[in-house]
């Protein structure tokens, strides 16, 4: 029998929306007992993240399942392996119970705007009175300190403010940006990095601390070479020909760095056969030998033999004609066939893969079990996103989905924290354990009756 790596670590999870829950998702995958404290009041915009997405084209509720607070597929994936307890931290009893959980937790994490939790009586100093060595991770956009700490961000604004958005696109068009909240995913990464690293410090010294993460700062670190080109060389990135789209240098502009890696040509996306929105493939030749191999894969067309393409300098100078020649070849091939032919001869090439491609058509992800199915109490069994690592000693499968709302109220509130069944029943009515404005879920009452019968 093997344990997960963080067996025995408990996380009090006060996060919401996306970046925070994505951080605790990976703590749960690593084996921490993540207790998600929820207050499912729709007026808070779905403070628990159980919001039924109302923007058309953005949801993940299965079409044949009625939308409820337990039916969102995105939620099921994002909260896999956590436990759920419902309580109102803004009542005296709720606050007392949060502190009881805290007293037996290793980490508390939250991603509210700066100052919100302090106003509820859950600031760091208050928490250390309950648990002196608590690790308290805050992950606001601008952090807890500094003149703009009160500002509010979401993934897209973090990307905009950090310079990441302006690194995406082609000259003379608006920024293309990132077609999803990259900094919710990556803000989550820094949230868990904060937890794990502080746990290592505690393991060495016995000390907890308040980790003050700024998601915008995290995003700025991802623009490092561009920033150094400015701070060291004085070169702005707001300049002609930048950002250069998928290329390393925009045609007709000086060969300057794009901060992605080495100069290369060809280095672009090309339409492939099929005519679909994602029928594209990318090719990147980093040196002359890879280019010569590509010429061979293309069947040694006459145009490609021109001496002007023999060197990187020449290929960069004549990128338009180079790309046109490759495009004329690529358009007749399926994107996977193009990849296989290129890679067989040592030419770096990949298909542009949609979500559908990754789940259904990617043999590598399938072979690695990336979307192996897992079950959810109400939704049934669905493919789940697994960890991008295989750990030899402590495997970390995502073998079940998210908890339903309040699923662990009995084991956590009654069996662990000593709330009586009578108090829980009353709390379901009086805004302590369930919002007065939301009809109580029948499964919660059934679980309560069942717990009574069992005791």
């Amino acid at each position, binding site marked *: 029998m093997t344990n997960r790596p963080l067996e025995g670590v408990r996380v009090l999870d006060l996060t919401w929306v996306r970046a925070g829950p994505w951080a605790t998702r990976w703590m749960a995958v690593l084996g921490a007992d993540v207790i998600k404290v929820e207050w499912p009041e729709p007026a808070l915009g779905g403070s628990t993240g159980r919001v039924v997405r109302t923007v058309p084209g953005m949801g993940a509720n299965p079409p044949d399942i009625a939308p409820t607070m337990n039916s969102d597929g995105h939620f*099921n994936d994002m909260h896999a392996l956590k436990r759920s307890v419902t309580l109102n931290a803004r009542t005296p009893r709720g606050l007392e119970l949060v502190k009881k959980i805290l007293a037996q937790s290793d980490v508390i994490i939250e991603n509210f705007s700066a100052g919100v939790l302090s106003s509820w009586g859950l600031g760091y100093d208050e928490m250390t009175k309950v648990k002196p060595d608590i690790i308290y991770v805050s992950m606001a956009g601008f952090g807890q300190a500094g003149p703009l700490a009160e500002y509010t961000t*979401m993934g897209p604004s973090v990307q*905009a403010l950090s310079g990441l958005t*302006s690194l995406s696109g082609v000259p003379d068009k*608006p920024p293309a940006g990132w077609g999803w909240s990259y900094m919710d995913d990556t803000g989550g990464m820094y949230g868990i990095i904060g937890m*794990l690293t502080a746990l290592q410090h505690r393991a060495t010294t016995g000390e907890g601390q308040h980790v003050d993460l700024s998601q915008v700062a995290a995003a700025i670190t991802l623009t490092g070479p561009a920033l150094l080109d400015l701070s060291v060389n004085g070169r702005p990135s707001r300049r002609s020909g930048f950002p250069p789209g998928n290329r390393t240098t925009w045609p007709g502009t000086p060969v300057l760095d794009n901060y992605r890696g080495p100069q290369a040509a060809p280095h672009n996306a090309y339409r492939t056969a099929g005519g679909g929105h994602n029928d594209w493939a990318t090719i990147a030749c980093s040196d002359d030998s890879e280019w010569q191999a590509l010429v061979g894969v293309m069947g040694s067309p006459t145009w490609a033999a021109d001496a002007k393409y023999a060197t990187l300098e020449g290929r960069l100078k004549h990128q338009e004609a180079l790309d046109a020649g490759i495009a004329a070849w690529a358009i007749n091939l399926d994107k996977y066939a193009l990849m296989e032919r290129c890679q067989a001869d040592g030419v770096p090439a990949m298909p542009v893969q949609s*979500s559908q491609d990754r789940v259904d058509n990617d043999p590598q992800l399938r072979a690695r079990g990336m979307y192996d199915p897992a079950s959810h109490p109400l939704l049934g069994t669905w493919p789940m996103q697994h960890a*991008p690592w295989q750990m030899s000693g402590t495997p970390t499968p995502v073998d079940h989905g998210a908890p339903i709302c309040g699923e662990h109220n009995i084991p956590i509130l009654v069996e662990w924290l000593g709330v009586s069944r009578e108090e829980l029943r009353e709390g379901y009515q009086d805004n302590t354990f369930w919002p007065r404005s939301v009809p109580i879920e029948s499964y919660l009452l059934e679980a309560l009756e069942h717990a009574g019968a069992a005791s």
Partner: protein
Amino acid sequence: MTTTESSLPGPLAGVRVIELADRIGQWCGKMMADFGADVIKVEPLGGVAERKVGPFYQDVPDPERSLYFWHYNTSKRSITIDLEQQAGRDLFRTLVDSADILLETMPPGRLPSMGLGYEVLSANNPGLIMTSLTPFGQTGPWRDYKSTDLLHLSAGGQMAGSGYDASDDPEQQPIAPGGGNGWHMGSHYAYIGTLGALLSRNVTGAGQYLDVSVHEACALTTEMHVPMYIYTGNVVQRQTGRHAGSRPTPPTQMPTGDGRYVNGGLGMNAGRMKPLVAWMDSLGGAGDLTDPKYADPATIMAEGAHISEQIRTLVGRITADEAFHGGQQAGMPWGAVRSTDDLPADKHFRARGFFPDVEHPEVGRSFAYPGAAAIYPKSPWRIYRRAPLIGEDTQIVLHEIGVDASAFAALRAAGVV
């Protein structure tokens, strides 16, 4: 103002990491080093290939002047070892015997073929955590395929979601956002898995082997795209400067009066409407939004396109900074679309001590670097030192693992180090 005490050890103090990593994993190693781990970068005698990547200091190409290398290798030490020679491999084994973590990015099978697989390396060091971060992992049909940052963003799904509305680009070409983020995504997960293994080892004493895939890390980093497909069958399409959607959504990247943009997407609700309209009204740009009917959430939902248009019109008259601060002070989670050029002057991040000056004694200057994403009051995350010169720490590292002066001289004479 900085709230950290620079004399305190970092949270990973006492952890030794051997980094045999290229562009794929240098970011993971940098995080460990800036967190206070002793990260020893093993380079070939002429230095790693990343030293040849620009931009360069004063635009002069030189392996000691690569700003790309400088950024990704702060706080590390460098030792040069020729792993093509058996004596070099023996030395590498001895070095790994002294380590808690080996971070490596060699092609799958390469280290075992050199007699340096996990079983060999952990024989004398059962607590060793060995993290292999590779483009596609150690197994599967693509494991030996070549990749680049562009190719990872292509196969990982980033490009399928990023690009333009047809009105901006009739071809709707997929766009790979810049900055080398395919490697960042892989390195973030490699760091998380490795720290998980380290924390586990604190309890059990046992090391282990981690096989981490950049492709899988990228495939995990498109937020809702994959769950949306799994649960609804819908596939997103690219849109200019905002979330891709399975159906078109209104623009959120608003042009400003000074020729820039503000991202104002995702976030209108009844609570935010009133202060926003008050701010717009103070600039004479609220139009009919002052009508009391806009207090009603249902009206806000139904009139979303009209509200957005009114906001866009106002924002088009003012500067990006005015829109950003004005919107934020009215409670909107807006962000000016800034260039990296705008960042070093940012008063907020300067106040957080985010742009430390890193000394480069060789050129007699210090330069502002992007620093720590988070403030750790008791064990600071910080840049300890500029990136190492090629083999700068070879002699002292070898001394630490018991290679005396005469043995060192012999290794050097033989071209092993």
